[in-house]
């Protein structure tokens, strides 16, 4: 069930350039079902800024009733969020949306998790669950540059991990797709989250595979009521049929919606 709760800050640190890892605790955590779901965050008490900010769930610790997010301090809202200190409260609405289904891949099969920039975080909880299920996980993580890289070690602990940077300062120079193309061994499922051009490239090249994509869109309500985040379905690209990124997604099967 979707709840609205003030969660308290357990820890908060900058783990890469302008990239923050924020752990919160509260009852709402017990409602979190799937990796790839997100929360909608009110960063201030007043009306400046007015709207909530959607941030993916990066990892869940149900026993401790804690969850972790990773976000980039970007505009006004996330810059304010970055100021929250341990013990302070954060107003969270969630969990929202439908995430990655961990049951699309069987024990012993191979799942490739492809993340770009701040699309990387939701893949972490997914990877932990897949690994627990006995799935062979491979991670391909793309970043702009060395300073922006985060969670490389964390992912390595779960499985094979390749990093690509646009400027070549860490790992392969180039895009995640460059790494993916050269990957050896069979691929049973691809899970991906990142910028739209990356998702498009994946869809173009791997539509024959089981491919899941997590989308981003500007949001109003985050719960499916305002129609801000709508996209066309792939089978009716000019028509009136649609999906809402916030409540039908943010994760869709490739070919389901128009990117």
């Amino acid at each position: 069930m979707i709840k609205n709760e003030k969660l308290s800050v357990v820890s908060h640190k900058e783990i890469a350039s302008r990239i923050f890892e924020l752990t919160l605790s509260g009852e709402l955590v017990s409602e979190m079902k799937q990796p790839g779901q997100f929360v909608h965050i009110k960063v201030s008490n007043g009306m400046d800024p007015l709207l909530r900010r959607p941030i993916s769930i990066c990892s869940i610790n149900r026993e401790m009733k804690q969850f972790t997010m990773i976000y980039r301090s970007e505009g006004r809202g996330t810059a304010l969020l970055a100021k929250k200190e341990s013990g302070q409260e954060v107003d969270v609405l969630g969990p929202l949306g439908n995430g990655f289904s961990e049951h699309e891949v069987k024990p012993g099969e191979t799942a490739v998790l492809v993340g770009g920039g701040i699309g990387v975080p939701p893949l972490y909880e997914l990877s932990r669950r897949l690994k627990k299920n006995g799935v062979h996980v491979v991670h391909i993580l793309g970043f702009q540059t060395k300073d922006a890289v985060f969670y490389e070690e964390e992912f390595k602990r779960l499985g094979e991990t390749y990093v690509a940077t646009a400027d070549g300062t860490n790992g392969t120079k180039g895009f995640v797709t460059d790494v993916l193309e050269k990957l050896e061994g069979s691929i049973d499922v691809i899970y991906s989250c990142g910028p739209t051009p990356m998702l498009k490239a994946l869809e173009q090249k791997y539509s024959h595979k089981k491919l899941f994509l997590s989308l981003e869109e500007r949001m109003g309500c985050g719960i499916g009521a305002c129609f801000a985040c709508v996209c066309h379905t792939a089978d009716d690209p000019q028509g009136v049929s649609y999906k809402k990124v916030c409540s039908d997604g943010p994760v869709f099967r490739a070919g389901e919606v128009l990117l």
Partner: protein
Amino acid sequence: MSRLNIELPGLSLKNPIMPASGCFGFGREFSQLYDLNLLGSIMIKATTKEPRFGNPTPRVAETSAGMLNAIGLQNPGLHKVMSEELPWLEQFNLPVIANVAGSKEEDYIEVAREISQAPNVHALELNISCPNVKEGGIAFGTIPEVAKNLTKRVKEVSQVPVYVKLSPNVSNIVEMAKAVEDGGADGLTMINTLLGMRIDLKTGKPVLANKSGGLSGPAIKPVAIRMIHEVSRAVSIPIIGMGGIQDASDVIEYFYAGASAVAVGTANFTDPFVCPKIIEELPLLLDQLGIGHISECRGRSWKANELFAHNRA
């Protein structure tokens, strides 16, 4: 004894709080968060004759104490609203206000005729003021004669009272209000959004795919209050007020200005529980202010003090 019930044409409201059209869908999502029976009414999303996909995304942008939207009247169309959404809403003890939109006069009339026959639709809200639709729309909302004629024709076919939703993007709001009153409107709802735009610093292009959009939220409240203050003295039909309402004090401010009920839009996005919260807070605030029934607040900003004292005696 209720201190919040309000009687309006077609609407017997247990309290004067309702979600504004377009900010609450058809209630399905919010029904998972709380019991919709708490609400006074619900203004459902604009319904057009045919289904509409609406505008390309991004459809929303944030502004100072406000937001812009250019949804573009996305809705499943009259048929589906009649066959799926309204029947679903019948499970609640909730008079529905159906927001009717179109780009041609005939569209409005057809939708009004049909939708006003739904058993739980107790009033229509004629949306002559949507800023996000390219064709037609503008004239209905800005030219008094055109608005009056549309109102008249819709009244002829509607089975329930008709409220007309006014656009704030006009030189003379009183003239518009009087025109639709002349056309037979049973009430007014105001205000719809102000036309606005944001431009992205990096790209130099408008943030919204539609370029401009409708400004809502606390930023526009002073404009709405001013307009309701003017209009409520000039017409004799009731006004449902809206624009930036966030809490119980805002509701009282709207009543003081001259509103007889209010709708909450954008605030539902910031706090999805805002409507039941306001309904809960209102009696406490009335206590603090020494007011018995909320209707006593109506028009206090322009009623002579004596008159008001008399009313309360």
